[in-house]
């Protein structure tokens, strides 16, 4: 196997997508055949891309753009950066597709087609985004990705809300794409069809005028930020992700959002090595803003999938923070630190791919089994679907950043990157770094709150409504099991990941910044500075727990007695309504952050319940502060322009007359 053949495999995987789509049009196939055929093929696609990505990641060096087509060049390449994202794509895609086989088991063929027609296209588009080596190729793949995902959002429900979400999503995505187009055009300068591959651009960037560079950086941040869910372009994200079927939500949240990170790295870092800490600080600031905003809103949600969607925002924000930090370090010339930050960011991305897709898939199984992901209805699933709950617990602990799971490892790296910043930081950084560090820490703490809320209220305690939940199907559990295993393994072997990322670091930092280390440990600089051995950690805890258990059992072991919960004397009479509602659970934050979300507690009548139930109604400040005004202005302008079309033919003639006269006068 060579690198070109890896690329070829990636393209083959991408080419499988349309095949499945066409297959989905065949009317003869029934639901079962469609489901198995479609999603198994998607799984195969994903596994292929996973393999190719892994190979490219571990294989040093990259291959130049290979071009197909005569006049319209379709250019592809493969290097460690693409490899990493291909790998990520493969991980999420394979598990999501496996899960989908179980998830859609009760779906009629008509509904299934709605998913199976865009789904493979979506996946192929993402593969192509990563493999694209030319402007046109990239933009085509990028737009296809947005388009197909839009119709995936609409595949679950075609209700007003879903349509609005899809509209908002594609509109913002398209505006972002237009910004990207601007950026790429600035970068390509000249006919992009004359084979302006990324490599060529990278070589030609010295001739860019400074303002052009700034414009490119700004436009691309806008463009990719729109896909990233970066504040204030995030408005679509919490609407779109919950609307989609859960495997798709997983794919969108864990694989599509990272595509934006890929774009930023590719365009603003690898192609365009812009000096100066300015943009690093901007990335840092936007990242922090996004993370804070996302985590704040995710604590307030009462819908599990919305909670997860907002938490994706938070994670992407953290990644952006890490990358911004990396840029700053590069600008300051501390390459090893830059490598550390970069590593932290990408590691975080990988982890997010693992646990966030696991969480979305789990929520999907919950939805399939109980018919709702509203935490006001859920509760006590740990008894009806124990295995799913266990897997979800692992994901929750991982995303809450608890050692020795993977989430903690990347957060640890990020914090180390902050702490190891030398004292010699220039003036502005002396303020920025500590504040940013504090902000990150706060975000992490808050996110663990959100996650505990999400898991605890839906899986623990007593059911808040009467439903008959059943354990997820074997397909689903297998998919989630793989992801959970991944969470644990990456947690135990963080060094393995950082070693794997060395090639990417070499590509982006143009030097061997990262030092090879044992797979079991994380020792960024030296064991003296900081070290973390999750393996020992895990063994230690397990030993301690088991020893305690055995000792206690051997010494005082007596059978337990199950009794009604005492509940300070309510014993027995306590109902499930005495548990906190989601709104109640996050009530302190609701109070503290009221100025931001201007949220209020409101009641809503529930048919099956006697008393009305409370829920939080809050509004996104950006929606009211930014989007509505823009919409108003546009409609107003449109009204004015329609005034021109006011029916009187004489007036129309007058337009022509005036135009003529004016032009004649001009040439006079």
């Amino acid at each position, binding site marked *: 196997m060579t690198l070109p053949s890896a690329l070829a495999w990636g393209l083959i995987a991408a080419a499988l997508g349309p095949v499945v789509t066409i297959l989905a049009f065949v009317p003869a196939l029934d639901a079962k055949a469609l489901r198995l055929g479609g999603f198994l093929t998607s799984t195969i696609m994903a596994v292929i891309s996973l393999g190719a990505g892994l190979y490219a990641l571990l294989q040093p060096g990259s291959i130049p753009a290979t071009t197909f087509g005569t006049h319209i060049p379709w250019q592809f390449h493969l290097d460690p950066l693409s490899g990493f994202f291909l790998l990520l794509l493969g991980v999420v895609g394979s598990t999501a597709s496996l899960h989908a086989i179980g998830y859609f088991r009760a779906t009629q063929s008509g509904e299934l087609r709605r998913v199976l027609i865009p789904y493979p296209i979506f996946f192929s588009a993402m593969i192509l985004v990563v493999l694209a080596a030319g402007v046109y190729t990239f933009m*085509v793949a990028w737009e296809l990705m947005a388009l197909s995902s839009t119709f995936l959002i609409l595949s679950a429900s075609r209700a007003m809300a879903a349509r609005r979400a899809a509209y908002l999503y594609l509109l913002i995505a398209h505006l972002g794409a237009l910004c990207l187009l601007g950026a790429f055009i600035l970068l390509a300068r000249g006919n992009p069809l004359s084979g302006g591959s990324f490599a060529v651009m990278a070589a030609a960037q010295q001739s860019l005028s400074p303002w052009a560079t700034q414009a490119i950086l700004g436009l691309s941040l806008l463009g990719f930020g729109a896909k990233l869910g970066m504040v204030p372009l995030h408005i679509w994200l919490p609407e779109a992700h919950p609307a989609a079927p859960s495997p798709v939500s997983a794919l969108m949240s864990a694989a599509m959002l990272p595509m934006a990170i890929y774009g930023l790295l590719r365009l603003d870092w690898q192609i365009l090595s812009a000096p100066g800490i300015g943009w690093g600080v901007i990335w840092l600031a936007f990242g922090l803003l996004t993370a804070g905003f996302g985590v704040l809103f995710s604590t307030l949600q009462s819908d599990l999938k919305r909670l997860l969607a907002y938490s994706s925002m938070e994670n992407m924000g953290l990644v952006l923070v890490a990358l911004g930090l990396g840029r700053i370090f590069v600008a300051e010339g501390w390459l090893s630190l830059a490598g550390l930050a970069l590593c932290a960011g990408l590691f975080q991305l990988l982890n997010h791919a693992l646990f966030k897709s696991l969480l979305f898939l789990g929520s999907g199984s919950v939805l399939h089994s109980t018919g709702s992901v509203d935490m006001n209805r859920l509760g006590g699933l740990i008894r009806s679907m124990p295995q799913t709950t266990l897997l979800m617990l692992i994901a929750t602990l991982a995303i809450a950043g608890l050692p020795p799971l993977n989430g903690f490892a990347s957060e640890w790296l990020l914090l180390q990157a902050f702490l190891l910043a030398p004292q010699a930081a220039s003036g502005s950084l002396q303020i920025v770094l500590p504040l940013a560090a504090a902000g990150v820490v706060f975000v992490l703490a808050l996110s663990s709150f959100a996650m505990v809320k999400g898991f605890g209220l839906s899986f623990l305690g007593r059911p808040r409504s009467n439903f008959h939940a059943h354990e997820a199907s074997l397909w689903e559990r297998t998919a989630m099991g793989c992801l959970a295993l991944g969470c644990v393994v990456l947690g135990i072997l963080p060094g393995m990941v950082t070693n794997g990322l060395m090639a990417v670091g070499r590509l982006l930092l143009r030097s061997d910044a990262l030092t090879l280390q044992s797979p079991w440990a994380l020792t960024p600089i030296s064991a003296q500075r900081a070290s973390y051995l999750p393996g020992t950690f895990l063994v230690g805890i397990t030993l301690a727990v088991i020893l305690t258990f055995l000792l206690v059992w051997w010494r005082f072991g007596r059978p337990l007695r199950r009794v009604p919960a005492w509940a300070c004397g309510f014993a027995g009479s306590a109902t499930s309504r005495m548990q906190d509602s989601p709104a109640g659970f996050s009530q302190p934050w609701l109070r503290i952050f009221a100025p931001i979300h201007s949220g209020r507690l409101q009641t809503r009548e529930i048919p099956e319940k006697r008393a009305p139930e409370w829920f939080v109604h809050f509004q996104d400040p950006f929606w009211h502060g930014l989007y509505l005004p823009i919409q108003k202005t546009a409609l107003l302008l*449109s009204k004015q322009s329609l005034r021109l079309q006011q029916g009187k033919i004489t007036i*129309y003639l007058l337009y022509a007359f005036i135009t003529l006269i004016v032009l004649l006068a001009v040439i006079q």
Partner: protein
Amino acid sequence: MILVGLLAWVVLGIPVLALWGDGKRGRRLFILIQVGVFLLAVALAERYLDLGTLTAFGAELRVDVLSLILILLNSVVGLMTAWFSASYWHTEVQRHDFGVARQRLYHAMFQSFLATMLLALLSNNLGILWVALEGATLSTVLLVSLQRSGESLEAAWKYFILCGVGLAMALFGTVLLYFAAQPVLGSGAQALLWSSLHQQAWRLNGTAMAIAFVFILVGYGTKMGLAPLNNWLPDAHAAGPSTVSAALSGLLLNVALYAVLRFKSLADAALGGDFAAHLLMGFGLLSLLLASLSMLRQHDVKRLFAYSSAEHMGLTTFAFGLGGPVATFAGILHLVGHSLAKSSVFFSVGRATQEARSRELADLRGFLNRRPVLGWSILLSVLAILGMPPGSLFLSEFLILTVSLEKAWITTPLLLLGLGMAFAAIFRALLPLLYGEGGGPCSALPLRGLTPVFLQLSLVLLMGIAIPYPLDPWMQAVAGVLS
């Protein structure tokens, strides 16, 4: 001589359809004639490949690469329109129980419309070009007013008066051109032949050419749907049968633009500077912005897409205004892509309006659920017209933006703005059209007629992925013709 044959065939079609153009027979004949046109056009292309530029009647008729591309385009779209018309017109006839005379009128006028446009493309004589365009206008007026309802009459009247005045201006411009050419080429037919003018263009009187070009631009611009002269466009598109709307957007606007381009190449040579280029860019940008603004609040589906035609023509005009090999290539590519996609849009939307018996977006809902095939045809054609990859419109818009940034970077944000607004407007209308609940009663009509949509869209797709062989060098060569 194949040019003559082609011309004769189409012209002959008119009386044939006028006599036997009713009922099934008429529809069949119509398709048959278009098939003939298509085959002849292909033969023409064959000949062109061998011999290069073709002429006839002592250079009164002339086919160079620009006109060849448009002739091919017209023949394809004409054929597809005829195909779609077969089922569409059948329904119309049943709906409004049109008599035999009306059916013949429809087919004959449609044929004469196609014929005059072909004449416009074939003729090398700018005077004949004008005559042909006037003829096209007259025949389309009758087509627009076909239903004889108040609305259609009003639309036709406005169309007639506005385009009539526009054409009068264009004629004046042509006269001025002749006036400027006389001293150089002497009086007589020579002084109106584009080919000979083009060789001597640099000797023409600058002032006269400037005035002439202004008249031409305003005149043909009216027909092309440039703002602020395009007030007839939404009315005519909305009032006429959808086949006519498709032909108007897909063919007539192109031919008008073609005329302007012919004059522009002369004006450029005569005036030296990029006076004409700037005019085109200005008008293009204005139309793009105004049209996309007007779309935002549109509730009539056919008006919506009529405005979108204005928007695309604006973009194309802008592209040709930019000039240069890349922009011109993009312009011609966009022209072709837009004709194919927009006619498909009008086919599918027209069928939808027939089924729902309404043009209001509020009544047209949820076609993807109710009528999957129709829904898909709407979806795909609208995506194509929105410039979604890998359709060819994406490529052309991409190129236009690129060049605009190079040559006039100040316009790029405006272009992006316009495109963004147009996208917002159309996509906003699209979603309920496909997925919306409710909507009025909907009579299921046979969907055979929708095959052309998919054929045309596959062409658009093909051109977005890899432009087929002879077309690619031809489109490249257009820049050479216009320079």
